């Protein structure tokens, strides 16, 4: 199993923020504005901004409606952790909700367990389309972590990895 939290090498991190907010649908817009504000100093293109906002909107919406069953409780919490290593953005969206039984199946385009809420099943597909990398960690009854990466602006893809 892949460890979700690991020791961090702060020499490469140029900025970081951790956001926790109530799992209510007002915060879908809040979360994507927050990530947009966070990457603003990198001078993202309009397309990069849209890409990141869309992916974050998908992951946060999923946490609120699937993870926490759309019950709108202020005490249910979604976390969004963002990190910059130079021009590489890492976004992690974490919920402690119901989790996903079969992640591979959940990630198939058009697959949804909530057709009655008019979900299109395109959430994960959009995250994949608009970000450079997508990782999903989930365990039933434990919650879900979605981790996404994208290079922003003109910098080069320079993440040292050991």
């Amino acid at each position, binding site marked *: 199993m892949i460890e979700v939290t690991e020791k961090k090498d702060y020499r490469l991190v140029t900025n970081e923020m951790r956001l926790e907010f109530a799992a209510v649908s*007002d915060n*879908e817009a809040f979360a*994507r504005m927050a990530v947009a504000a966070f990457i603003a100093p990198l001078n993202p293109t309009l397309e990069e901004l849209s890409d990141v906002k869309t992916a974050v*909107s*998908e992951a946060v919406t999923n946490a609120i409606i699937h993870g926490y069953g759309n019950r709108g409780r202020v005490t249910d919490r979604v976390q969004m952790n963002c990190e910059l290593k130079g021009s590489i953005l890492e976004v992690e969206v974490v919920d402690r909700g119901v989790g996903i039984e079969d992640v591979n199946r959940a990630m198939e385009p058009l697959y949804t367990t909530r057709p009655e809420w*008019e*979900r*299109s099943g*395109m959430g994960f597909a959009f995250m994949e389309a608009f970000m450079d990398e997508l990782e999903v960690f989930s365990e039933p009854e434990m919650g879900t972590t979605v981790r996404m990466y994208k290079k922003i602006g003109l910098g080069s893809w320079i993440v040292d990895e050991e």
Partner: protein
Amino acid sequence: MDEDYKVIDNYLMIKMPAEIDHHQSVDISKRADRYIVSKQVGNVVFDFERTTFMDSSGVGVILGRYRKISCFGGKVYAVNAGSRIRRLLLLSGLENIVELVEN
């Protein structure tokens, strides 16, 4: 708001909001269906003129209306859909479902 919903002949015209996410979508679907049922309209036209953000929830709204009206031969249309929204519709495989109206 209700001034964003207009029935002309057999068409429901919806002026979509600036940001279409799950929070907004729930409301759009509810209002749209009220008009579809009460005014018995056959077709739905989504106008994206004001829209600067949409995620897959918007795809759900379009698909949902399509499912409601297509069995009676109705169609869904998109006007003022910029390149971003076209891309979202294409990614979702809606190109045969939504008729894109050029302006």
